[in-house]
């Protein structure tokens, strides 16, 4: 039985579940001190005075610093995605020196012998602020007389692209749908809050961080602080979730490194949940103006999208690029003659936004999938029928879309048919009609989302064309140990995804070794020296393939060695189940025997080194395009406005599957996160720019008790852009589910004249929509 495709339980779970973990907060260094930050209570203000002297006198306090104390060396936090020629990238000092631009921005810090004393001392620091006007509303921010977040104004960038004759598409169009949707601001809520530990031996530095990107972080820390790259080692130990929020170079990482440098001591910072709600980069926050022109039969003629995207106060690592990851996704799985996309990035005095699970694609998918339902309603067609009339048919792949991507494979018909059968679509439609007829106070709605997305970032050439500040390759190494066991090194480190298990399965099949004989190392730049890290559902489609390529190289070496030892030509060897056999004979060498022979090196052929190790990188030619059909049945209590999910079916096509259990986990978690945007989560700032949702009492996250049982299934249309035929799965559920849920709510309420409910669709909002 092959390992790939097998529902293996995860190797890492026994350790994680029993608490034998290496979270950054669990780590200790001799003489370690604790850092805490004093954060701005003002959304926008000039700092006129910072006095840390009272803090310095308190017990246990070793040092206290203002932003000015690091002004000369802290640099500016990087933005690695200058999306357009007109982009404005303001200076972003890790600790504010003269002006604060969002509530939560660090203005001073304390270093103490424990966190309790540090927290006490923070209260002794005096800061004087001269208030400046907050800038909160994107539309107002763009008016000429708006107060400015930065000297250069409130527009971060603007871009526009048009494909086809968009005017012709809209001119005399039988149907034009015009809608504005608001993607509310979200706060990523990883189980493990952020944490940083920095240490130095006086010459070089080690930084442990709860990060998704140890390799990129190392480069960026060198650039920002001027500490040479080879003197910095970054370790991502066990990392408890990220969802994009740990795809960042944070103020705290830079400052912990600089404080360790200045004091010559180890320092640690661990955020509290409330601190995290304020200062983990936020997600989404767009106003989408979308217009769709169609024929009377529902075929789309053209689509216009105009986005306002809230950058927050600064451009962080990839802030400005996030909305543009949706630029080629609004057209989704549909064919059309013309497409126009524009986006304006806007500065406000709020926490910067950046990548959050799906990053640009959930926003786009929501926009188009809501519009398709609106089109169906306008034409009195079934929402799936409108989609069928527009989607790319399976025989049309590979298909180059209006926005210029080439979808390598897909079968929307198959996924939809399977979902419909599992859902009991016709029966639910009948019940819906019955409830409508009876005037039942609890109405039933059915929501559809036939999504696709682009993921597995990669390819480097494409990322370069988009001005993205990094490549898209990934690195893998395979080392055959003398006893025949296998050590794998991957540049893509997990923060919950199960790389250790999945990579073991891939290697076990490729080298013919037992699953248990493979170990996977990652996340430490001293061990995993090359990598592009973990985001954008790229680990398997790029990093997994790099490991596979490294296995191929090991086998090539092993074949040469085997041929030498068996006294035959390499071409006479067949490799199966870990054994090289001379064709037509009984003589053979196992890969383990060859590993030992390489280790001994007593009898190596010319040109073969004393190791069965290899390195490989992989850089696919294309993104991967998972797709699927999600169906949601929603009961809406018209008396209270409460919406409850009755059933949810997800049929995803993520190509070939390495481990169905891991896939199931990703789909479940993804759907839950997408539902959370539809129903529960919203970061709320008040009129002064104070974040009101600083605790989980106010920022609502669903638990298992709030979610239905998900019915999940798959179709399997292999990707053609990688040898395993796999596609990314980390974000699919989140991208798909939000519009399915909101479409279901709107579907339930359509007879009441409702055609939209703002997310999150709280009971109060639904009640007001009905009023």
């Amino acid at each position, binding site marked *: 039985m092959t390992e790939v495709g097998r529902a293996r339980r995860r190797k890492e779970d026994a350790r994680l579940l029993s608490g034998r973990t290496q979270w950054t907060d669990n780590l200790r260094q001799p003489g370690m001190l604790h850092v805490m930050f004093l954060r701005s209570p003002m959304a926008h203000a000039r700092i006129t005075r910072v006095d840390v002297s009272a803090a310095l006198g308190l017990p246990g306090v070793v040092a206290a610093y203002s932003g000015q104390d690091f002004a000369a060396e802290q640099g500016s936090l990087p933005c690695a995605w200058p999306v357009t020629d007109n982009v404005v990238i303001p200076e972003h000092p890790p600790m504010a020196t003269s002006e604060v631009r969002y509530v939560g921005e660090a203005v001073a810090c304390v270093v103490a012998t424990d*966190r*309790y004393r540090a*927290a*006490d001392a923070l209260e002794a620091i005096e800061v004087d602020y001269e208030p400046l006007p907050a800038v909160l509303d994107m539309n107002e921010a763009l008016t000429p007389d708006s107060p400015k977040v930065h000297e250069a104004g409130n527009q971060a960038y603007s871009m526009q692209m048009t494909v086809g004759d968009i005017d012709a598409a809209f001119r005399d169009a039988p149907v034009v749908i015009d809608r504005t949707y608001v993607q509310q601001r979200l706060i990523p809520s990883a189980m493990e809050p952020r944490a940083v530990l920095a240490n130095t031996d006086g010459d070089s530095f080690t930084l442990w961080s709860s990060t998704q990107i140890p390799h990129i972080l190392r480069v960026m820390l060198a650039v920002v602080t001027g500490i040479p790259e080879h003197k910095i080692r970054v370790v991502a130990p066990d990392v408890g979730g990220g969802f994009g929020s740990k795809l960042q170079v944070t103020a705290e990482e830079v400052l912990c490194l600089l404080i360790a440098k200045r004091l010559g001591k180890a320092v640690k910072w661990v955020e*509290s949940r*409330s601190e995290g709600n304020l200062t983990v980069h936020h997600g989404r926050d767009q106003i989408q103006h979308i217009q769709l022109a169609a024929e009377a039969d529902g075929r789309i003629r053209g689509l216009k999208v105009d986005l306002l995207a809230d950058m927050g106060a600064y451009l962080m690592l990839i802030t400005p690029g996030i909305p543009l990851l949706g630029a080629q996704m609004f057209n989704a799985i549909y064919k059309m003659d013309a497409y126009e996309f524009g986006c304006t990035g806007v500065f406000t005095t709020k926490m910067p936004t950046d990548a959050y699970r799906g990053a640009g694609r959930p926003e786009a998918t929501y926009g188009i999938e809501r519009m398709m339902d609106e089109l169906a309603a306008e034409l009195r067609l079934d929402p799936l029928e409108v989609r069928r009339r527009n989607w790319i048919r399976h025989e049309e792949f590979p298909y180059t879309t209006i926005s210029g991507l080439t979808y390598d494979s897909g079968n929307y018909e198959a996924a939809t048919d399977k979902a419909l059968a599992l859902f009991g679509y016709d029966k639910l439609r009948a019940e819906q009609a019955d409830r409508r007829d009876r005037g039942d106070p609890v109405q039933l709605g059915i929501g559809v989302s036939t999504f696709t997305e682009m993921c597995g970032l990669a390819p480097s050439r494409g990322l370069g064309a988009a001005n993205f500040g990094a490549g898209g390759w990934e690195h893998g190494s395979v080392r055959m140990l003398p006893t025949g066991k296998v050590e794998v090194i991957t540049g893509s480190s997990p923060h919950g995804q199960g790389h250790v298990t999945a990579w073991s399965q891939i290697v076990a099949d490729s080298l013919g070794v037992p699953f248990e004989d493979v170990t996977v190392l990652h996340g430490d730049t001293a061990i995993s020296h090359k990598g592009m890290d973990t985001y954008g559902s790229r680990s398997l489609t790029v990093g997994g393939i790099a490991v596979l390529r490294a296995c191929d190289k090991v086998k090539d070496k092993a074949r040469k060695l085997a041929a030498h030892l068996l006294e035959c030509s390499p071409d006479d060897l067949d490799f199966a189940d870990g054994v090289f056999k001379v064709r037509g004979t009984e003589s053979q060498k196992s890969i383990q025997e060859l590993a030992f022979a390489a280790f001994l090196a007593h009898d190596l052929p010319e040109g073969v080194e004393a190791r069965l190790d290899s390195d490989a990188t992989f850089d696919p030619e294309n993104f991967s395009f998972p797709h699927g059909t999600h169906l949601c049945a929603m009961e809406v209590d018209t*008396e*209270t406005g*409460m919406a409850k999910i009755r059933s949810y079916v997800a049929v995803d096509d993520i190509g070939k599957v390495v481990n169905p259990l891991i896939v199931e986990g990703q789909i479940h978690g993804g759907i839950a996160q997408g539902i959370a945007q539809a*129903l*529960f989560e919203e970061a*709320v700032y008040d009129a002064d720019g104070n974040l*009101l*949702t600083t*605790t*989980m*009492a*106010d920022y*609502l*996250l*669903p*638990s298992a*008790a*709030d979610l239905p049982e998900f019915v999940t299934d798959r179709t399997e249309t292999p990707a053609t852009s990688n040898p395993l035929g796999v596609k990314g799965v980390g974000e699919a559920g989140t991208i798909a589910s939000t519009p399915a849920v909101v479409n279901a709510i709107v579907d339930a309420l359509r007879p009441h004249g409702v055609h939209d409910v703002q997310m999150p669709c*709280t*009971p*109060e909002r639904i*009640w*007001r929509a009905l009023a």
Partner: protein
Amino acid sequence: MIPAQFDYVRATSLSEACQELASDEDAKALAGGQSLLPLLRLRLAYPSKLVDIGRLPELSGVHDRGDHVFIGAMATHDEVMRSGVVNTECPLVALAAATVADPAVRHRGTFGGSLAHSDPAGDLPAVVLALDGVFVARSAEGEREIPAAEFFVDYLESALRPGEILVGVRIPKLGAGWGFHYEKFHRTAQAWTIVGVAAAVRRSNGAIQEARIGLANMGPTPVRARAVETALQGMELGDQLKQACQEADADTSPPSDLHAQPDYRRHLARVLTHRAVRGASGSP
């Protein structure tokens, strides 16, 4: 959790606990910690001393005392919701306790703690108010009884005096013929109640003889929906119940927060009161 510094003492007797609290006006009693610890964590409270009352026998358990059930202040929500005598004699308390947050909170959080905290969004204050419970408090000066109607003074403020500890609550047994329902409205399982309605209804011969209705989170304290209680008296079951419940929000001053504006809370109070009354009276 990084609270400000405080002293800690674990009381070994109720009188010792009373003395500790009386001798230091900034001292706070620590019961299950489910309300106090978040306040400490957010540094919204700076007690000088925490007096741990977790091991005092006088405060523990649920007891059948003839004409009433005595629920010790330190009985956890989980204990209360599983208690045989509570489920038999005052099931409304068990119904509400079962809706508190999640199992972890219900195993730590205490009946007395959530009442003494007097959060109007709590579920139990409205229930005890509806059932006319009697609070038993102890201080260095001795024991006193406080009727539920006088216990909830203002937002997060009870009638307990400095140095006074809630020992427990007497819930009168209502006898035969009563039905109960707790209607909780909240957005997620662990979220606070937006509006809660605790209803106890006695009916005979197809009509409601008596109704007691407590509302959660419709003002700075839990309140009784007196107008509805009066209107329901003698009312036959049926469509007219809905009309009677239209006054559920009379004399309330519902708060405005992220989860609901006052007009929506008023609407919810009317709808949910109708549901609670129907549930308690066994009406379809």
